[in-house]
């Protein structure tokens, strides 16, 4: 260990145990520069006092961009001068998080030169997170990153860096090319990504199938989740092989089907696909025997968010099934209309899900010119009064 390290008995506790430790990592980074040592010192003090010592900066950034840099200052700059500025940069990750080792080394080299050397691969937004640099290093870091074809990601009231599961690159269940769509939307909406103009943040997350590995249903204002509309492909021989090898198909597959639409007579597996809700459970248990159907596309849902102003929302259905094919005009047209109404009518810091809840789904659908369908109903109505339009009289 470097001998410039402060005395940190509280933090040292977090190095114990078999799991990875961020304290260990920060101590390693301290060998490359002075920021990490001061970071440990300030954090130890925070742990002792149970008080955070960071101030938010609201103005730092790079020329022309309104997002991607999150300003942080220490409120103990005399005691910890090396982290007096400790700004975070979000860097747009490649779709599916695929890198060459050369790209990773280049990013690390730039960050050891320009910042603390500490990274978070990856933040919950999906971005590469570079933790800790000074205001005067922001532009040079940006220039260096552009030199290796990386760009800054989103933050603030803008389109956040779109992110996706590795989809067709590695996963047999991908029902559409998540990486292609992510790349396309990222390039198409560069202005929205770098120039915040929304009432609040907006996130796209693409998952290739209902397993939803990027948790888009809970974390994206627009969740694009792969699915199929024909029948689950079944290889009956492979089903029997699972049974022969000891899988209890009745209790592990049939009984766990949420729509109770499967039957197993010991020889054949029957699925009533008209009741299947595409939950993936049976396919996950018997991947050699079952696979998604052949007519594949995605369900598009809107409105999920973590609790900040209102409570947490899950996304709800907008399009039960659409084909996902370039140039993705259907998605883009809908997105443009949604953004128009939300920008025009949305309140400051109101996510689109909260906006829809406030104005009512019916009015929102009217504004974006989409007809309601039964799949949009999240739960049965609680209000027993029904007014049919033909009963209204003009006064």
């Amino acid at each position, binding site marked *: 260990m470097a001998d410039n390290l402060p005395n940190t008995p509280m933090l040292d506790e977090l190095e114990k145990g078999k799991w990875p430790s961020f304290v260990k990592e920060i101590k390693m980074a301290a060998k490359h520069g002075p920021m990490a040592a001061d970071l440990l010192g300030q954090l130890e003090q925070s742990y002792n006092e149970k008080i955070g010592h960071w101030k938010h900066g*609201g*103005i730092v950034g790079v020329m022309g961009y309104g997002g991607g840099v999150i300003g942080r200052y220490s409120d103990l700059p005399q005691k910890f001068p090396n982290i007096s500025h400790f700004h975070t940069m979000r860097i747009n990750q490649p779709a599916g998080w695929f890198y060459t080792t050369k790209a990773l080394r280049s990013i690390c080299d730039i960050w050891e030169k320009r910042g603390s050397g500490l990274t978070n691969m990856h933040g919950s937004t999906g971005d590469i997170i570079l933790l800790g640099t000074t205001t005067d290093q922001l532009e040079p870091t940006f220039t260096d990153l552009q030199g290796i074809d990386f760009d800054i990601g989103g933050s603030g009231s803008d389109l956040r860096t779109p992110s996706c599961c590795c989809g067709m690159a590695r996963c047999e269940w991908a029902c559409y090319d998540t990486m292609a769509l992510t790349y396309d939307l990222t390039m198409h909406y560069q*202005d929205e990504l770098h120039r915040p*103009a929304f009432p609040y943040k907006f996130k796209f997350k693409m998952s290739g199938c209902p397993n939803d590995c990027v948790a888009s249903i809970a974390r994206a204002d627009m969740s694009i989740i792969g699915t199929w509309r024909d029948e689950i492909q079944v290889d009956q021989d492979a089903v029997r092989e699972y049974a022969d090898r000891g899988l209890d198909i009745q209790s592990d597959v049939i009984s766990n089907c949420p729509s109770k639409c499967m039957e197993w007579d010991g020889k054949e597996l029957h699925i009533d696909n008209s009741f299947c809700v595409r939950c993936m459970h049976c396919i996950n248990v018997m991947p050699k025997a079952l696979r998604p159907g052949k007519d594949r596309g995605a369900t598009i849902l809107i409105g999920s968010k973590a609790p900040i102003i209102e409570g947490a929302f899950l996304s709800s259905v907008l399009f039960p099934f659409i084909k996902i094919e370039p140039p993705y005009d259907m998605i883009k047209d809908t997105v443009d209309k949604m953004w128009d109404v939300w920008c025009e009518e949305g309140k400051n810091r109101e996510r689109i899900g909260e906006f829809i809840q406030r104005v009512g789904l019916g009015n929102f659908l009217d504004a974006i010119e989409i007809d309601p369908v039964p799949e949009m109903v999240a739960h049965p109505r609680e209000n027993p009064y029904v007014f049919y339009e033909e009963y209204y009289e003009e006064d």
Partner: protein
Amino acid sequence: MAKTVEEIADAMFNMVKDAQGQKKLKPMDLTKAMVSIFGDEVDKKTCKLAIKQLIDSGKCVYTYFGGSYIELPHREGAAND
């Protein structure tokens, strides 16, 4: 007569200047103000280009305080030397 990007950018700049230190304006506040002042002589696209020009010329900067705003460049209260 349709307003040019420059004219809109100037009008927006004056709004931001007058509001500085008193009220933080969002891009949509500027756009809505332009529409209410100039009516049919502006559209949202021109407003978007005007904002782009204000930012790219360095006359205004984006700031973040819970949400994103447009302000004159200045030294912020939280900044350390």
